[in-house]
């Protein structure tokens, strides 16, 4: 490839606003160069979270520590009424909460009592709550959890998590490369720590639903990272041959190329979750949905952030230490005629250079004849 490939028309950035530049692929955000900023932000959040964990721990739901809970739909009563009713029914220290707009939840730990006493109190509380709510006792939902159940769920989830981590690292190592696997893994752990930290800081209750949501987040975060890495791999396949971009610059270019997609995808993923959180949980009072929605919301934000700001800069940082990319950076660094590529100009350049430098992943032939040739190409 010759040095005078930068012949495309310079693009006037002022034509478009921020969104317009994103839409037209004209962004030139230096994701890799500013990695210290991104890493610092994440480390601060994670350290705060771990600090909170160490001091306050988790707000564990009854599924994890054992206990009983009752729920009833009661639009016309108050927490004070409900509390005095269940206290009269024999609960010593009930925790009464209003969930959403009309669901009342009472929790208490009965596991120290004998099983017959537990059954009596459970029944009395059901009747008391039904009376307060003005419904029949069959309308009261109950949940009794022995002290060992939550541990079992957690153990299984942890087991699944570890196997998942191993499988994912293996898959990315084979499909892409080991360093990408490491970067993706770090991004996943990042999301895990951020979500867990946020839960501890804000004192959100951890339920088995939260565990499911966190597993979803990890899968999603990884999915997001894989899409970005797929583009990085595409772009870097010709990096040594091309010689006008360092690895970091290639990663930056890939990030900007996929930025519109990353933002769109994150929005598309977060919109339904937001709907779950606001409409499902708050307006309609489905408490399980609230548990899912909250964890998913925090995690998806973290996942979108980590694919862009953690995984990719980390990958570039690791790769730049390889001798061949050090060499490349040194060679490229002395040249003065370089210009920052936008997704848009890179696409143009790739079309122009592909006439002389056929790269399998990105070229189909010279742009002038592409129409005729495209139809003949076998898709597979």
């Amino acid at each position, binding site marked *: 490839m010759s040095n005078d490939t930068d012949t495309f028309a310079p693009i006037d950035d002022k034509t478009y606003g921020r969104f317009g530049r994103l839409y037209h692929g004209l962004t030139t955000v230096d994701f890799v160069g500013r990695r210290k900023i991104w890493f610092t932000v994440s480390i601060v959040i994670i350290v705060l979270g771990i600090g909170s964990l160490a001091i306050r721990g988790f707000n564990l739901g009854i599924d994890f520590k054992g206990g009983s809970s009752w729920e009833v739909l009661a639009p016309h009563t108050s927490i004070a009424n409900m509390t005095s009713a269940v206290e009269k029914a024999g609960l010593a220290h009930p925790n009464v909460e209003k969930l959403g707009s009309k669901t009342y939840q009472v929790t208490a730990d009965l596991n120290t009592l004998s099983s017959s006493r537990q059954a009596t109190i459970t029944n009395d509380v059901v009747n008391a709550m039904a009376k307060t709510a003005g419904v029949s006792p069959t309308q009261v939902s109950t949940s009794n959890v022995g002290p060992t159940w939550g541990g079992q769920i957690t153990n299984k989830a942890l087991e699944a998590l570890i*196997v998942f981590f191993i499988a994912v690292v293996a898959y990315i190592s084979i499909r892409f490369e080991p360093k990408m696997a490491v970067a993706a893994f770090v991004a996943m752990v990042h999301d895990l720590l951020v979500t867990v930290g946020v839960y501890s800081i804000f004192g959100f209750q951890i339920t088995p639903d939260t565990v499911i949501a966190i597993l979803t987040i990890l899968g999603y975060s990884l999915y997001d990272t894989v899409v970005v890495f797929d583009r990085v791999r595409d772009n870097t396949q010709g990096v040594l041959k091309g010689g006008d971009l360092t690895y970091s610059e290639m990663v930056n270019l890939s990030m900007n190329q996929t930025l519109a997609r990353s933002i769109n995808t994150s929005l598309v993923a977060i919109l339904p979750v937001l709907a779950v959180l606001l409409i499902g949980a708050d307006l309609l009072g489905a408490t399980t949905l609230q548990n899912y929605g909250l964890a998913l919301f925090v995690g998806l934000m973290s996942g979108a952030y980590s694919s862009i700001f953690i995984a990719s800069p980390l990958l570039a940082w690791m790769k730049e230490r390889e001798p061949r990319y050090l060499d490349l950076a040194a060679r490229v660094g002395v040249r003065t005629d370089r210009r920052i590529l936008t997704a848009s100009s890179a696409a143009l350049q790739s079309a122009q250079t592909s006439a002389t430098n056929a790269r399998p992943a990105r070229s189909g032939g010279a742009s002038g004849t592409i129409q005729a040739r495209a139809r003949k190409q076998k898709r597979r």
Partner: protein
Amino acid sequence: MPPQVGSRRSLIVSLVLTVAIAFGSLAATLSLGWGPKLGLDLAGGLSVVYKPTTHATTSDMQEVVTILTNRVDGLGVSGATVNLQGKDVVVSVPGVKDARAVLQAVGQTAQLLFRPVLCEAGVGAKLTAATTLPSCAPQYQDTAANLNVNTSTGNPVNIAPDPAFTNIASTKPAKDLPAETVLLPLLGQPGVRYVLGPSQMTGHSIKKALAQQDQAGAWVVNYTLTGTGSPLWDQVAQKNFHQLLAIELDGVVQSAPLIQPNQASFTSFAGQGQISGSFTQQSAQTLALAMNFGALPVRLQALTTQTVSPTLGHSSLVAGLGAGLAGLALVLLYTIVYYRALGLVIVLGLAVTASLLWAIISALGHTAFAPSFDLAGVTGLIVSIGITVDSYIVYFERLKDEARAGRSVRSSVDRGFRSAWRTVLAADTVSLLAAVLLYIIAVGDVKGFAFFLGLSTLMDVLITWYFTRPLVILLGRRGSSSTSKLSMAAGLHAGAQSE
């Protein structure tokens, strides 16, 4: 030119077939009136997880599952499932109105025992517990000699209760062990109690019991015995020939029938028998149910018990569906604003995906295999909206790239698909990997969630190849010269072209 995968004809065939299959299966499902099998948290109902208190082998636990299934089925509720997850038994009875009543019946973890009746006892006004029971006095003993059954009428001699037991309290559950001699009440007759000898057989040996009417219209309980139970039953019956054998469940004598009162000598039951007497329909059914309860090979302890009221379940269902639809509407609105005509492709694509998913979930609801559709599953599907739409976004952003390179829409759609397809495959593989691993390893709700996430991811791969690819490529070939606002170029509207 030989026919290609990408030929116009094959694209049209693939597109038409996919749309036809999707909407056809949806129509078929709807016309059959099939719907998803709703989980406990959506339909309301009861769920209990039992754990064995002592060491139990897998075959023990499988037997527990069989017995609990019999118990649940005996209650006449539909859609109930009993599953083994590791060493835990998960009983789930969705859609019942009075969950607590079901819980009481299923939750009986006692054993069904067959004990010989030693003598009858009355109930005094003031009962005191006794550490050991006295022996029945000889004249009150329900021996074959004392009973002296009249084989033509089938009636025994009436023997009075032993007064020695009148003021002794019935045996407490903790002391009600199979090897002990116990004093227990008779079901439905407050004044009658029996002194019973050690258990000679357990409910293990009963295969099935049914309340039926005999030819005269009287209610009887017919029962069959298991292969190993049959010889044991013959042995027990012979030992107690012309005597009373009590059937005890959970500290209560369900019935104490007389063995073969109309026969002069014992004959083999050959694997089946009948209990008759003054049964009403209800009492016969209660006895049959009790006998079906069988004997659990291990004692069970409830790890977690959950009942959800149908109203609460219904409000969750409405909330879940409402939230899902609202989220979907927001997503579609966004994509149409962003991608214009291509946004309509997403709308159509989601409609096809949703139709197929609904048909599959409904059809699976009719098999025992699929997990029921609960809130965790709803969440899995809502999350998969993101993954499904993302495949389109990846493709369309690639299209924009191609258009920026100055390529025509016509050639972009081919090239863009090829690179997007690799990305979609790689990303969906990861998602599928997560779903499969979770499904295999995790327990409870997580399983259902993983199932629906995996299903919709698989659907995404299929729809991308068989629907999105032909549709967009055909649109691209057709619409490359169009200048209308709805054309593909308007949706792509790349920077390079607008300079």
